[in-house]
């Protein structure tokens, strides 16, 4: 009898304990819910897929992922977000979608979630998130409308973000006793010196294909060389001295680049570096994961990384993806919990170890992460100069971007005069901006 009583007491005690933990579990009310996330097919999200099961295990919230090629993803989201009740609880979005989605009022303002004590994790440490990324991808409504500022607020959190970084062939640099370029002058000189030292090898792999690729490559150089697309009053200044210098730099890189560089997209530029046909690579950090993959790369172990060289200032690109909760999502609170978990210090590290792009300074500095990916510390340094305003994030940017890319392609392939090309871009850009109402108050 006594034995039985003890047994009952123990069971009751265990139940009380279990109930106790249940109260302390912020995920409890959402246990058993299923979230639908829309992610791009992208190396970062491949890594994310590997840690999602940890989230389910920890919280009891199931996650289904709809994985799409990133342009397809954007198209699908555009339709999905206009519906009354959407299928997605959490979406990853490309940075230029911020302008479209926020402007169309399709994303949840995150303030009410971070204000909710039942949802917000006090150990989240938002200070640790990379400033350039948060400003570029997460915040809207401040300066210029698309940047942080007194009137801005948070709509998304960077997740799978990228900056630009210089990759170089250590073996080639050692062989000819070359110095890793720190400024644009050095970079330009080296880019054309290498084909002379190593016949058949291109200096710097750059994208240049007509349209988005050419424009992207140009913008990479524009910010460090001191340029911008618009001045403070939205007047196009892309055709000023800095703009011309950036276009000249692009032309030099392409002319001294590997054969056929005029039509390279991101993939081709990367491939030419991986195949050992080019000595340097200046583009997004997302590329770094492939360099030491023997299936894709012939330069395993030969590549080192340095920050994006400096022109008149430092300014590396910011881009990639963020995650946000659509206005028409069904399980918004659980989606916030997933979002918070994914971008927490803990998950950021897990994802980095699985090959993703971390969004936190602490992960870049983490010893364990650096042991697996020695370049992470360099990337962390480069991130301090990540420029959230290296390219405007406004709804009409798609059109201006395409025009800029076409004009630059003509410079690269048809020998169109640079000043003339950029003057044309500036003039057409002004017309686009005028029609979009940017000069209403002038």
């Amino acid at each position, binding site marked *: 009898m006594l034995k039985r009583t003890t047994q009952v007491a123990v069971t009751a005690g265990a139940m009380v304990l279990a109930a106790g933990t249940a109260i302390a579990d912020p995920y409890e009310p959402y246990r058993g819910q299923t979230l639908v996330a829309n992610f791009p097919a992208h190396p970062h999200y491949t890594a994310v897929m590997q840690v999602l099961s940890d989230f389910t295990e920890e919280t009891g919230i199931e996650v289904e992922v709809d994985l799409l090629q990133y342009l397809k993803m954007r198209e699908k989201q555009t339709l999905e977000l206009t519906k009354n009740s959407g299928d997605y609880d959490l979406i990853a979005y490309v940075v230029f979608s911020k302008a479209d989605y926020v402007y169309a009022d399709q994303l949840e303002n995150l303030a009410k979630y971070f204000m909710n004590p039942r949802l917000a994790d006090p150990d989240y440490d938002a200070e640790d998130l990379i400033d350039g990324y948060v400003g570029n991808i997460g915040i809207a409504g401040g300066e210029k409308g698309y940047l942080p500022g007194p009137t801005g607020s948070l709509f998304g959190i960077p997740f799978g973000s990228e900056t630009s970084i210089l990759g170089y062939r250590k073996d080639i640099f050692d062989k000819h006793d070359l110095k890793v370029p720190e400024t644009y002058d050095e970079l330009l000189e080296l880019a054309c010196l290498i084909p002379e030292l190593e016949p058949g090898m291109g200096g710097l792999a750059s994208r240049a294909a007509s349209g988005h690729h050419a424009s992207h490559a140009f913008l990479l150089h524009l910010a460090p060389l001191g340029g911008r697309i618009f001045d403070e009053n939205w007047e196009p200044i892309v055709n000023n001295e800095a703009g011309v210098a950036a276009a000249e730099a692009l032309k030099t890189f392409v002319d001294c680049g590997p054969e056929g560089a005029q039509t390279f997209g991101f993939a081709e530029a990367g491939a030419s570096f991986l195949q050992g046909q080019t000595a340097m690579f200046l583009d997004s950090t997302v590329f770094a994961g492939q360099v030491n993959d023997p299936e894709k790369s012939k330069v395993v172990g030969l590549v080192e990384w340095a920050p994006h060289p400096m022109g008149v200032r430092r300014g590396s690109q910011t881009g990639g993806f963020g995650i946000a909760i659509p206005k028409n999502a069904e399980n918004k609170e659980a989606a916030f919990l997933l979002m918070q978990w994914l971008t927490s210090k803990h998950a950021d590290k897990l994802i980095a170890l699985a090959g993703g792009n971390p969004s936190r300074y602490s992960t870049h500095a983490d010893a364990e992460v650096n042991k697996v990916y020695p370049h992470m510390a360099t990337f962390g340094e480069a991130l301090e100069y990540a420029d959230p305003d290296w390219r405007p994030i406004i709804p009409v940017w798609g059109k201006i971007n395409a025009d800029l890319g076409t004009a630059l392609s*003509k410079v690269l392939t048809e020998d169109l005069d640079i000043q003339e090309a950029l003057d044309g871009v500036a003039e057409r850009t002004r017309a686009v901006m005028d029609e979009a109402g940017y000069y209403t108050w002038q």
Partner: protein
Amino acid sequence: MGAITLGRMTPYVFLAPAAAFMIVGLLYPIGYMVYASFLDWNPSQRIGEAEWIGLRNYVNLLQDDAFRESMFVTLKFASIVVSLEMLLGVGLALLLDREIRGVAVLRTIFILPMMIAPIVVGLMWRYMYHPTVGIFNRTLEDWGFQPIPWLSDANWALTSVIIADVWQWTPFIFILALAALQSLPRSALEAARIDGASAWQQIIYVKLPLMMPVLIVTALLRLIDAFKVLEVILVMTNGGPGLSTEILALRVYRTASEFRELGVAAAMSNYLLMLLLVLTVAMFIYNKVTEARAARLRQMAEKG
């Protein structure tokens, strides 16, 4: 009275389902597109939220250099490809319209390119045109020639795209022309042979004129298709370098997805539609005129 009305109504009752299908399946989407072309509509808005701007999209397009250039590229591309394909396709058909051993296999091989998915065709050609590892440039270099900037030079790029299209679509003309050839009245050909017509004379005076109605329809179908070709060029050049291969269909696609201007894209499609309509009507009128002339000639011959 009731029965008579019913009797009169019968044909309409039978026509009704077809008419309903036409309205739902054909007129509604076209009407939707025409309506959209008068709107300033971006894909983040529902169509009801878009602003009505009348003819502004159409007017702006006429002043848009990029649109005009792409219209010009389209016309150039379509006219060159269709002429080349007609020439080659009909030529091949004339050559292969005979009893040689294995001709059936040969014919099947000839129409293979047409059956490959356009994206694959684009990729295939892109790799063949690759500046360093592509088969063309490697062969040229092996033979001691300078490599050609197939896709990276504005002038070459259009030529390269045309070559790929001709490769893919000549078979289409070929099978239709072959079918037309084989259904020609044997009596006319026999009469020509008995009259001592040479092979060339048979082709020029008998076969081609008799095939003409089919050839015209074939050319028209190809032309319509050539105006809308998208995937192959999208994969091969994405319109570049510059705008040298940006045909209208690609421009429409980019306007809708990249520039997010659905109204402008709709207006562009309508311009394309109008252009094709003009071409079709012109072909139709030409057909009518030649038929009328033939009928007149026949009448005269019968009288005489």
